[in-house]
């Protein structure tokens, strides 16, 4: 404490003396000149005291930090004039590294240039702190200090030290840096690295050949620094070399290389980048290759991951007309390929072309080339979704576009065949996806494919889904007629005229009614929302307990379409519901026909009875036509039946008449009855 106070008072005493020395001028008044001389004598007496010298040196060191300009230069001069630098020299010969370091720092801060050679010896000192202090001092003391440092240093130069040295160089006034490419041939790798950094810092782009050679260096750090220089200086000539060395580099260097190619490369580098993306197994490197592609040519690679409603094009190539193109370029292969921007445009064009064709050849109903697929399901694997452009795929898509441009019917027939062939080769998952897409975005152009699925698919669920899709497509009238005719043919036999529209309407109405009946069940929707077969099983099991007659159509549908396990439960549910029905109520009383069999029987009975009557030559017991409004027989019909001798159906006698009789008629009837009774 005492020492501190003593030191403080000494500093306060010395401060005005130093100020006087610093701001003294020969032009000052005589009094001040006199004062200056007195102070000079006084201070020379003190300089014999090392303690005083140390305090004086400390004051000057403190002050040099706070002042600038001419005052600082005067302060440096004062420091040497007072001989304080000799004390700093002595520190350099100390065995303590802290003292040596302080000596070097003091000499460099007070800009004692004469100390340069003394400090240079410490460049290769084994003590790190001394060495680093010496490096900075060398750089600060003389403008050529950095050259001496790079020439003589044998030790590593840390990145932090490199930054400090660059900062020291930046503080030098009127500094003209040397050509740092001279040190690219150094045997000290850190010197090479530092030289590369300095080349970059001072934009010395004339070192291109040397820098290009360094990308072949064994050391990855040097490689990366050289690549960084190539990128910064836009050395396009070095690109071929970069591509050449690429496959022998580590992943980290590869990323830097790709980044550089992406920055300075042109479109001629895209095939190389594509090759990298395809051959590389390292994920970050693949990503960098794709990023580089987009950097060279923006939007070459587009994102596909988690893209909802991604438009995919199902292309069926007929093998006959597309022999040179691989037929695997179907939905499956497109899914696997990453879409590129050009392909996206092509997809849209193709759909439009298809529409045109469809319009033109609608009557022929033969175009079955594209199926637009909206993939709404998320991919199960979260792979990186961006992939590069595939020229082959591009070419095949282009070919397919031109193929569709022709209206060659043979081609179209071949396309149909191609669709069915492709469907046959699909995996179960792909088939499911295809049906999903048809359910979501299908239209009548998929009719042929759907028919093919309905006819040839082994999986009953897929068949049923295809059938539903076909129904929901809203097919054209002709298709409906054909289907209705086929249905009626199967149902009613040849006795019914196949092409009578009334019959078709009856069948249509029946189908609609059946659908309505199925949808009456509250379990219908729930069943379709169920995620797996177990859930469906449990759901159908619940019908056994809580179901009623409205669920029977749905259960009957399950008997036709559901897997066997569910079928059994559905059968059981029907039995239970039948048991629960009140006595006297049977299936025929259901407000809505339950199945096709019931109607079939009714129609057959009707047809059979007509045939029987014709055979016997008997008049049928005609059921009295009843006025729909009041359920009574019209007057005219009563007279007609009387004239023809047709008997009323006894069961219908109580229906009454829909006309009014005059009071006179009733009076006549009553009087006649009374007369009869009297008789």
């Amino acid at each position, binding site marked *: 404490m005492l020492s501190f106070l003593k030191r403080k008072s000494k500093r*306060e005493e010395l401060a005005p003396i130093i100020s006087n020395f610093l*701001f003294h001028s020969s032009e000052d008044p005589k009094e001040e000149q006199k004062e200056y001389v007195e102070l000079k004598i006084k201070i020379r007496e003190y300089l014999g005291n090392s303690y005083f010298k140390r305090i004086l040196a400390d004051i000057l060191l403190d002050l040099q930090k706070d002042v600038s300009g001419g005052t600082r230069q005067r302060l440096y001069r004062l420091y040497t004039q007072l001989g304080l630098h000799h004390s700093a020299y002595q520190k350099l010969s100390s065995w303590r590294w802290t003292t040596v370091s302080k000596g070097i720092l003091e000499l460099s801060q007070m800009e004692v240039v004469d100390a340069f050679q003394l400090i240079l010896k410490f460049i290769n000192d084994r003590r790190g702190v001394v060495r680093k202090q010496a490096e900075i001092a060398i750089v600060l003391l003389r403008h050529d200090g950095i050259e001496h440092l790079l020439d003589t240093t044998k030790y590593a130069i840390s990145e932090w030290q490199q930054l400090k040295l660059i900062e020291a160089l930046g503080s030098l006034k009127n500094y003209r840096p040397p050509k740092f490419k001279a040190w690219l041939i150094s045997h000290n790798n850190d010197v090479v690295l530092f030289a590369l950094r300095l080349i970059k810092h001072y934009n010395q782009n004339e070192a291109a050949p040397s820098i290009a050679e360094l990308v072949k260096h064994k050391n990855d750090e040097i490689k990366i620094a050289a690549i960084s220089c190539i990128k910064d200086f836009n050395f396009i000539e070095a690109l071929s070399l970069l591509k050449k060395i690429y496959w022998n580099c580590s992943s980290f260097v590869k990323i830097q290389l790709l980044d550089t190619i992406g920055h300075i490369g042109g479109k001629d580098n895209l095939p190389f980048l594509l090759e990298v993306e395809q051959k590389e197994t390292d994920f970050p490197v693949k990503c960098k290759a794709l990023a580089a592609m987009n950097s060279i040519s923006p939007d070459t690679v587009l994102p596909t991951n988690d893209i909802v409603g991604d438009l995919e094009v199902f292309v069926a190539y007929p093998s006959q007309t597309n022999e040179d193109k691989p037929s695997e370029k179907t939905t499956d292969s497109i899914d696997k390929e990453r879409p590129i921007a050009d392909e996206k445009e092509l997809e849209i064009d193709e759909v439009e072309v298809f529409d045109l064709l469809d319009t033109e050849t609608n009557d022929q109903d033969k175009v079955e080339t594209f199926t637009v697929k909206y993939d709404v399901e998320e991919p199960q694997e979260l792979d990186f979704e961006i992939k590069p452009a595939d020229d082959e795929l591009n070419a095949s898509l282009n070919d397919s576009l031109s193929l569709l441009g022709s209206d060659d019917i043979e081609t179209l027939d071949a396309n149909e065949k191609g669709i069915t062939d492709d469907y046959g080769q699909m995996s179960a998952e792909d088939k499911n996806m295809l049906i999903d897409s048809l359910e979501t975005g299908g239209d009548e152009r998929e009719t042929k494919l759907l028919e093919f699925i309905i006819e040839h698919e082994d999986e009953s669920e897929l068949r049923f889904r295809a059938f539903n899709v076909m129904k929901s497509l809203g097919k054209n009238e002709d298709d409906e007629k054909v289907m209705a005719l086929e249905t009626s043919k199967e149902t009613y036999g040849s006795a019914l005229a196949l092409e009578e529209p009334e019959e078709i309407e009856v069948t249509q109405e029946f189908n609609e009614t059946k659908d309505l009946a199925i949808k009456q069940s509250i379990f219908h929707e729930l069943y379709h929302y169920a995620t797996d077969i177990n859930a469906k099983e449990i759901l159908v099991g619940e019908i056994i307990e809580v179901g009623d007659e409205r669920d029977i159509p749905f259960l009957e549908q399950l008997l036709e379409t559901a897997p066997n396990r569910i079928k059994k439960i559905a059968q059981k549910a029907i039995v239970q519901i039948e048991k629960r029905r009140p006595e006297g109520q049977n299936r025929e009383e259901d407000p809505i026909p339950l199945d096709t069999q019931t109607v079939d029987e009714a129609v057959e009975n009707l047809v059979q009875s007509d045939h029987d009557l014709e055979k016997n030559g008997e008049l049928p017991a005609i059921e009295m036509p009843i006025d729909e409004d009041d359920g009574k027989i019209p007057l005219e019909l009563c007279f007609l039946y009387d004239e023809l001798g047709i008997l009323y159906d006894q069961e219908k006698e109580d229906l009454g008449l829909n006309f009014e009789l005059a009071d006179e008629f009733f009076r006549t009837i009553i009087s006649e009855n009374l007369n009869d009774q009297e008789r």
Partner: protein
Amino acid sequence: MEPRKILLAEDDEMLASLLKYRLEKEGYAVTVRSDGKAVKQDISAQLPDAIISDIMMPYFSGIELVDYLRNNLKSDIPIILISAASNEENVISAFKLGANDFIAKPVSPSELLIRVSKEIERFYRT
């Protein structure tokens, strides 16, 4: 003619001494204060002709001093700020609050003299 009174607020004694010597040599009457509290007391008692203040001082910063001078004392006397932390934020806030000038450390005493004389001349001429 009475010398212009300058209040120098600087906590670094050596620098304060050096600047004081230089300013006095130039004919100013300089009072040195090493903390913000003392400066506040001084200016509350009597306003100098100009103030040179370091921004980073104990108790009361140079920025607060400008604020106090301009908003509490409603004084327009020239005030020049000095700081080693010559970041943009410091400079902008100093000028916003009404500082006349800003000098970054290390300070050139010659430059400071010119700026001080310029501010004083401008203030007292108007």
